[in-house]
């Protein structure tokens, strides 16, 4: 569905991404992991052409992304960013309706159909009861779900998530990720998620892309990617990798240095 063909990107002089190639299949749930500054967010931004790579290209269903109009991209790719700062306290419903924007163009007002789609999206993410509340009155978890609803209102084929669980407590993390997983499994939505939390990525994603300093270090299913060697090499710290006893997926355990030393001896 999406082909990333050896893209390289630099902000000023330093390459943030170098010769990155991979493919995203329809209906996949892909996780992008890596240390701070490894290029996760940049990669996502390139995927919806907020940034354009200096080298290489991205094909969306064989069409080069750079030839698509902004509106066409927004009809197919929705983005849920880390934290969205709004200058004005728009209501939750207004925010979700903004998701209809790519379909409206210059036409100024949403019609019944748009309202229906927005309501359905809000029902789905369980934020319909707050539809008239101002976005800054909602909790972090509720706000995230409003933005997911906005993404759904775009009726996209792909949803890009940037650190979706960053400032949520574990309850909201799991609620949120289950919602995304349902979207992926039941609606066949393709998901690309950049995440710091490798355990979450390991549990939820079909495939992982492990970035190191702008290059792909390893790509594959979680069991291939999250190994003690890979993680220690990329992150430069010692970890203990075992299996989650329930799911059988790899699990990273962080240990204090003193404990690690005892283990080694």
């Amino acid at each position, binding site marked *: 569905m999406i082909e990333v063909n050896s893209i390289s990107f630099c902000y000023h002089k330093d390459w943030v991404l170098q010769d990155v190639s991979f493919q995203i299949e329809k209906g996949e749930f892909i996780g992008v992991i890596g240390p701070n500054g490894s290029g996760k967010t940049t990669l996502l931004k390139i995927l919806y052409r907020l940034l354009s790579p200096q080298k290489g290209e991205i094909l969306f269903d064989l069409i080069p992304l750079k030839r698509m109009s902004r509106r066409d991209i927004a009809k197919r790719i929705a983005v849920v*960013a880390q934290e*969205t700062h709004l200058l004005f306290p728009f209501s939750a419903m207004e925010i979700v309706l903004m998701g209809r924007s790519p379909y409206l163009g210059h036409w100024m007002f949403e019609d019944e159909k748009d309202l229906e789609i927005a309501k359905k999206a809000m029902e789905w993410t369980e934020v319909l009861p707050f539809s008239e509340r101002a976005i800054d009155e909602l909790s972090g978890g509720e706000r995230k779900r409003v933005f997911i609803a906005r993404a759904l209102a775009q009726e996209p084929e792909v949803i890009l998530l940037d650190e979706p669980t960053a400032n949520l407590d574990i309850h909201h993390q799991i609620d949120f990720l289950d919602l995304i997983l349902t979207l992926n499994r039941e609606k066949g939505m393709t998901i690309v998620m950049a995440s710091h939390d490798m355990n979450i990525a390991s549990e939820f994603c079909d495939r992982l892309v492990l970035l190191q300093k702008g290059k792909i270090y390893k790509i594959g299913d979680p069991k291939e990617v999250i190994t003690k060697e890979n993680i220690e090499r990329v992150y430069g710290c010692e970890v203990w990798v075992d299996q989650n006893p329930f799911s059988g997926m790899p699990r990273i355990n962080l240990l204090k240095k003193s404990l690690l030393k005892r283990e080694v001896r």
Partner: protein
Amino acid sequence: MKIITLKKVILISTLLSLLLCFIILLSITVGSVRVSFPRSIQILFQSILNLEGGGTETERAIILSIRFPRAILAGLVGAGLSVSGAILQALLRNPLADPYILGVSSGAAVGAIIAILMGLSTLSFGLPLASFVGALLTVMMVFYFGRQNGKIHPNTLLLAGVIIGSFLSALIMFFISVSQKEELHTIIFWLMGDFSFSNDQAILVIFPYILFGILLLYLHARQLNLILSGEENAVQLGVDVERLRLISYLSASLITAASVSVCGLIGFVGLIIPHSVRLIFGPDHRLLIPSSALVGASFLIASDMFARTLLAPIELPVGVITAAFGGPFFIYLLRTRKVIKTL
């Protein structure tokens, strides 16, 4: 539902248009020569419908060729400055932004002062033309210096505007310090904003700029809402941010240039009208643009009315009135309405 619908926009715009009409009618009746309210309405409508009679020759002349055109001009300028201010506040994400923040005013002032000093202000188009050219040159300069890698960054643009503005202010001060007493009076009045410079043709000249500018901005009202939620956000929702920025900055600058060229620097309207309207109707540009235009027009016509009559026969610069009445009213709104957080 709190959602802005076409119906709501039409309803509010109609109500505000009625207010505007009432203020226009009121403004043509008051003045140093008093013409009664029904009489002036009669004169106006008869002339619109091309009917004969109604009122004396003098009354007709006062209403049709002095007060009515002046009210229309004040309305156009008020609408233009308010919309331009609203747009710049949103684009620059700065609540202190007003139509003059990008230096348009100083450029226009330099143009106008040069025209006054060279004696061009006696020609019917000398003053407006010179200030319009000054404003446009400044806008071009600000855009040239305010771009980075061919892209417009709000903060860079703002800084370029402020700095070019202060440079031009130095020029203005220089010109003022070398000018003669009679010229000084004209210059000061121009700097404070004054409709007595204008004439009928001025309306015809600025009308298309202001109307077209506001319409063009209104066409992008929904996209402007999206840009309020951040540039990245707007891109995610399919807005071509670069193009939108360019169109909006240029329209706002053109509107401002056209406005100041006919009546000088009328302060405050472009700052407080958008804020007041936002406090009352909310931040959505689909409603904000038309209501700012209508409220701004009404406000400036009313201010001009006071400027003409308060100390009659002396005419005050309208800028004095806008600041004196607008300030306290805005403070009142700020204290009584739920304050909108950032803008």
